[in-house]
């Protein structure tokens, strides 16, 4: 296992790709080497010696280029931290701690897989799709968002996927409807995928996972949680799973879990 460490990384690109969504590309050769899909990093968003925001922010690796030694994050501006992140200029340096957490697991060789994401949840799936394809899997993508303005990965994913199915609430791209509607619509293809990888808002993830499990597919979900340490020390990020009687740390045992382990309603 690679120990997470602090990397001071040069910002190569930090640009708005859709309103409120940014692509951040860093020069980080060591991270690029070790970061696996589904893992994440904790980024220091406060400027200089400012202590507000105090905590690092977790972001999933959205892609990694081992050749050039660069890593990519895709993030949505939500609050204080991501807002400050969006103001960082190219050429600046960012303090990144990683790689962190337990990522996605590859399925049996040769089987097709599906990545299923909503909104910014698509971020880690871009890396996973790429990784799956490189390991010889056919990859199908099912992605949904409110509208085409917040639909991420529709273009990027075409490079690694056999097919990219999209849905938007307002019908501005793909099927008009939410992720469940999309999975119903493309149920035939979905059923071919022996393993599914899901990331998105809690509720969307819960219903998508239920659907996949219902179809008898293996299903891995990437959970979100408020994190302080990101390495398993503070017990701040726990959720309920079947692994332990009490609580499970999302940052180390996850963020990726088998869907059937997660007690979505706890």
């Amino acid at each position, binding site marked *: 296992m690679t*120990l*997470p*460490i*602090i990397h001071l990384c040069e910002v190569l690109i930090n640009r708005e790709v859709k309103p409120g969504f940014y692509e951040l590309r860093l020069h980080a050769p060591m991270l690029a080497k070790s970061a696996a899909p589904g893992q994440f990093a904790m980024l*220091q968003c406060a400027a200089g010696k400012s*202590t*507000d*925001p*105090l*905590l*690092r922010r977790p972001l999933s690796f959205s892609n990694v280029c081992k050749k050039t030694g660069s890593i990519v994050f895709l993030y949505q501006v939500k609050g204080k931290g991501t807002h400050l992140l969006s103001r960082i200029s190219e050429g600046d340096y960012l303090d990144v*701690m990683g790689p962190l957490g337990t990522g996605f697991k590859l399925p049996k060789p040769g089987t097709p897989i599906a990545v299923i994401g909503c909104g910014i949840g698509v971020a880690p799936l871009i890396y996973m799709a790429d990784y799956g394809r490189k390991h010889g899997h056919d990859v199908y993508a099912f992605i949904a968002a409110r509208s085409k303005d917040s639909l991420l990965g529709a273009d990027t994913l075409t490079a690694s996927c056999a097919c990219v199915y999209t849905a938007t609430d307002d019908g501005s791209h793909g099927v008009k409807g939410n992720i469940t509607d999309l999975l119903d619509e493309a149920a035939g293809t979905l059923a071919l995928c022996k393993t599914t990888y899901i990331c998105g808002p809690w509720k969307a993830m819960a219903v998508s996972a239920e659907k996949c499990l219902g179809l008898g597919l293996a299903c891995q979900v990437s959970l979100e*949680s*408020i*994190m*302080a*340490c*990101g*390495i*398993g*020390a*503070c*017990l*701040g*990020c*726990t*959720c309920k799973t079947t692994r332990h*009687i*009490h*609580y499970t740390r999302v940052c*180390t045992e996850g963020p990726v879990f088998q869907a059937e382990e997660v007690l979505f309603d706890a």
Partner: protein
Amino acid sequence: MHDSSLEMTLSGIRLNNPILSASGPFGYGLEYLPLMNKGDLGALVVTGTTFEPRPGNPPPRIHETPAGMLNAVGLENCGVEQFAKEILPKLAEYNLPIIVNIAGKTIDEYIKIVEYLEKVPNIAGYELNISCPNVEQGGMAFGTDPDIAYTLTERVKQISTKPVIVKLSPNVTDITVIAQAAEAAGADCISLVNTFLAMAIDIEKQRPVLGNVVGGLSGPAIRPIALRMVWQAASAVDIPIIGMGGIDSWESALEFILAGATAVAVGTAFFTNPGIAQEIKQGLQAYMEKNMIDSLEKLVGAALPQKTVGGCIGTDD
């Protein structure tokens, strides 16, 4: 040349340097220690330990605030037995003094834990957590009542062969009263501060943010209050003090030392900067060299009115 050594003895415990992990944020040390250099930490204070395992509070357990954070972990821990049998052996390789932070619901629970630990090797001392704001019974109630603090400390001292540190709650009108109660009962050392009872409200849900409603505030936000309490306690007792609360740099560590802390503990700052102990260590060393101070002791309490410090101090700027 001056040998600016940070080595010291804290209530009989030999420390390589005065920087301790604050109990809780550092867990059992198994996550952070592998990321650090040997010798960066003076002693390891492990997370609050109860007799039985405790599940802790429901999430959300953490919420960020300006220059601080709330936590309501609620003393989730594996209990003293599993700690002794499974965790402690893993810590051996780090060759650090290990101080166990003890949290009981009742005085009897504290006693049972100490009795258990007395039979366990490789423990340097106990820290009695009488100040955790995140549990219903015990915890902070002990820390705000000088009589209970006295009785608890006295009873633990009767059975302990190790140094006993009493960790004080800042949620009191007069910190010196509790500090003196602990000292009078025989405490070898006091540590302060634990977190401030605090909360945040989710304006959309119109409900408290934390699963436990209230939580403990830590981080730089509380530092000026914590420092004032250490300053007051230092004037009120003669036993050594471990100062903490928002320390995130060597400068802020030094403030606590100048206010009268013999050692300092770092909690929340590890989250942002796992290398913080080394930074503090090197910063203190550089300061001592620059000011030609050969022993940290000379700085302890140097800012207090009655004390003056040797060495050449003050740059003209």
